[in-house]
């Protein structure tokens, strides 16, 4: 069996590591309490005490009061432990890192994630979408900018949930010890396609991360084949009002930046694998794969669709 994509019972970074043991503890306590109550209930059903009034049982000489006292002590103990542990965990995870290795500006939109990589030098800044790369061992500050409606940023194996609220900027952070792909998910209902509003955090060794970052800084090369050139023209007339491709005449800002579309593993916020077939179907009819997404079906002829594919695959 493969690991569940949103495995919130395992951790892959220091932030989640502070939370996951607490989750297990609370889960265990809840299961035990549930079982104890069930057993007592069964016992009461199997051995009813006749018609004696409850007050008589409590005040009588068969230790009724003792049951209540022990019950209180037994429930208070795990609650106090949970309280103290929760405070301690919050202390470790709540404050954002003072000197983060990387700062990201993430703006969740109906139903995708815009990701800006900040840097002191403007030439080192870039925009991408739906796939966040970080270096292992680095503490990454995420500034969550509220956009259209309330969303929530959640990468269970790396961090807890943080809401993005319109008009507000909330801080959260990520850190991964183990290289891997960690699925994230919008965790606050935000509209029709809330369930298909996922993203991936790719944690890779610093050298690989640096290679990825440099590649992302590149602008798109001018298309060379005839088909790709025709596709680029269709792109300008049909898609550029919403999508940006750096290096081409396309600077829309209401949809994912497509400059390095082919470097992503999934498209449409985790809805489809990034293959030729999905790209064709998505571009022609996003409303059948993700009804309610803010990209309308595109009335392209078969010829235009083929040219568009030839162009999109050059966006490495």
């Amino acid at each position, binding site marked *: 069996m493969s690991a569940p994509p949103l495995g919130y019972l395992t951790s892959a970074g220091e932030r989640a590591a502070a939370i996951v043991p607490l989750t297990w503890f609370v889960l265990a306590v809840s299961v035990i309490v549930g079982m104890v109550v069930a057993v007592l209930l069964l016992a009461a059903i199997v051995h009813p005490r006749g018609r004696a009034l409850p007050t008589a049982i409590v005040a009588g000489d068969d230790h009724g009061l003792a049951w209540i006292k022990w019950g209180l002590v037994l429930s208070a103990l795990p609650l106090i432990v949970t309280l103290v542990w929760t405070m301690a965990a919050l202390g470790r995870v709540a404050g954002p890192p003072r000197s983060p290795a990387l700062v990201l500006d993430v703006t969740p939109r109906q139903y995708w994630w815009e990701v800006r990589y900040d840097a002191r030098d403007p030439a080192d800044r870039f925009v991408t979408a739906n796939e966040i790369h970080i270096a292992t061992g680095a503490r990454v500050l995420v500034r969550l900018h509220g956009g259209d409606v309330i969303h929530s940023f959640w990468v269970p194996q790396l961090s807890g949930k943080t809401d993005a609220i319109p008009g507000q900027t909330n801080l959260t952070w990520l850190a991964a010890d183990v290289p891997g792909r960690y699925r994230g998910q919008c965790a606050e209902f935000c509209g029709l396609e809330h369930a298909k509003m996922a993203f991936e955090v790719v944690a890779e060794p610093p050298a690989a991360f640096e290679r990825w970052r440099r590649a992302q800084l590149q602008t798109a090369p001018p298309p060379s084949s005839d088909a790709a050139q025709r596709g680029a023209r269709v792109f300008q007339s049909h898609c550029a009002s919403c999508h940006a491709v750096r290096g081409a005449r396309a600077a829309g800002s209401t949809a994912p930046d497509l400059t390095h579309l082919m470097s992503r593993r999934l498209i449409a916020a985790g809805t*489809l*694998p990034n*293959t*030729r*077939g*999905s*790209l*064709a*179907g*998505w571009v*022609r*009819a996003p409303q*059948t*794969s993700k009804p309610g997404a803010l990209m309308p079906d595109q009335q392209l*002829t*078969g*010829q235009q*669709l*083929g040219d568009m*594919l030839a162009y999109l695959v050059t966006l490495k």
Partner: protein
Amino acid sequence: MPRLILLALTLLVACDRHADRHAAPRALIAAQCAACHTVPGVAIARGQVGPPLAGIARRTTLAGRLPNTPANMRHFLLHPQAVQPGGAMPDMGLTPAQADAIADYLATLDEP
């Protein structure tokens, strides 16, 4: 009773075999065809750009022009644009082995 259980188990194993034989083409269909076609047996294949493929094994004509034979199906999967220039289905870049596997699977879809 034990016999019934045995029978059920055998059937289950048989089903599993059946599933296994087509696991590869089903994964391919999920990755490559799902955004355009609705395909029985592939849960995420709910696309509505192209025709639904339920009952494709019984259809007589492919792409409105070719008789539906295994060889033509394979040919169409490999070169949709050659069969239907300007059609909405792009050349998918399948290998011949992949086209065979998908054609095999489609040949089992005989219920409309």
